[in-house]
């Protein structure tokens, strides 16, 4: 056990004794961060659950105006991006720099595709007057207020998720740059690993948003 502080390197910061310790600490730190993210989105999931329980019919109706094919396609895009992400991490584990870069680029592209589709959907909402506010109108119900609650939640949830996607894309760009510089090696690729955890987590959030917002009670239509 080293008892003196050693010279700091990227692979081993001065506060740690061994690389295993540093890696363990980073992994635990990332998971604890994801825990806070669960609670962050948790507040919204809670509100969604309560309002859906109180206003099931309007929520079912409002939900069925969303295009579930687009939603499903976007889910698929995100799942593909998770797949490319995990391959990038695998490449890093094996020290294949070019593989890592390739899959990071693919991940970023898929992330952007997701955001593009999302933007298209939001744009549609504006045209259909499904954006909460004075101009809001949803066909088929007189309960405009409660319908607005659904779309408020829709925009809050998908908006925050999209924000996480944007941050994720930024993170991937940074990792791409660092990989290009040759910073990582099979001995030290923690940032790529952490970036992967974040990306997959954002994916998981969408895995729940998709059925909650698009699918449940669609059969009522």
């Amino acid at each position: 056990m080293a008892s003196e502080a050693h010279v700091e390197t990227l692979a081993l910061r001065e506060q740690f004794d061994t690389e295993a310790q540093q890696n363990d600490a980073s992994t635990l730190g990332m998971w604890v961060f994801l825990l806070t993210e669960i609670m962050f989105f948790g507040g919204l999931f809670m509100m969604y659950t309560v309002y859906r329980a109180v206003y099931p019919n309007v929520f079912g109706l409002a939900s069925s105006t969303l295009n579930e094919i687009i939603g499903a396609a976007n889910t698929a895009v995100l799942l593909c991006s998770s797949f490319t992400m995990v391959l990038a991490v695998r490449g890093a584990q094996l020290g294949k720099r070019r593989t890592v870069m390739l899959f990071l680029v693919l991940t970023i592209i898929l992330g952007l595709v997701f955001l593009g589709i999302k933007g298209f959907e939001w744009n549609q909402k504006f045209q259909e007057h499904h954006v909460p506010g004075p101009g809001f109108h949803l066909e088929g119900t007189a309960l405009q207020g409660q319908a607005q609650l659904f779309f408020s939640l829709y925009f809050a949830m998908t908006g925050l998720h999209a924000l996480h996607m944007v941050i994720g894309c930024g993170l991937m760009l940074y990792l791409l740059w660092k990989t290009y510089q040759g910073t990582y090696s099979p001995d030290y690729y923690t940032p790529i690993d952490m970036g992967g955890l974040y990306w997959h987590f954002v994916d998981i959030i969408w895995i729940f948003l998709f059925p909650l917002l698009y699918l449940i009670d669609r059969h009522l239509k």
Partner: protein
Amino acid sequence: MTHPIDSVKTYAWVWIILLFLTALTTAVAHVDLGAFSVVVALTIAVVKMLLVALFFMHLRHSNQLTKLVVLGGLLWLALLIMLTLADVFSRGWLGVPGR
């Protein structure tokens, strides 16, 4: 590093299953299952989450502590939702508005 390296084949299988489940949940949404449509949709979502977490996020290779962190997060989320629902659902029971 700490966890073993999974094969591309494993990842590819998980990916394919995930895509299949997405198609499945979308298709099932059009079938009238009554109250079960929620259950089915959320069950599929949970399965997908587990696949992503266990394989893509390497949770199956992780130590107990990491698993505890994840469980703790889900438990706390459940607490937040359940205790609030306990209030919302029991609001009319007494028949006195506001109590």
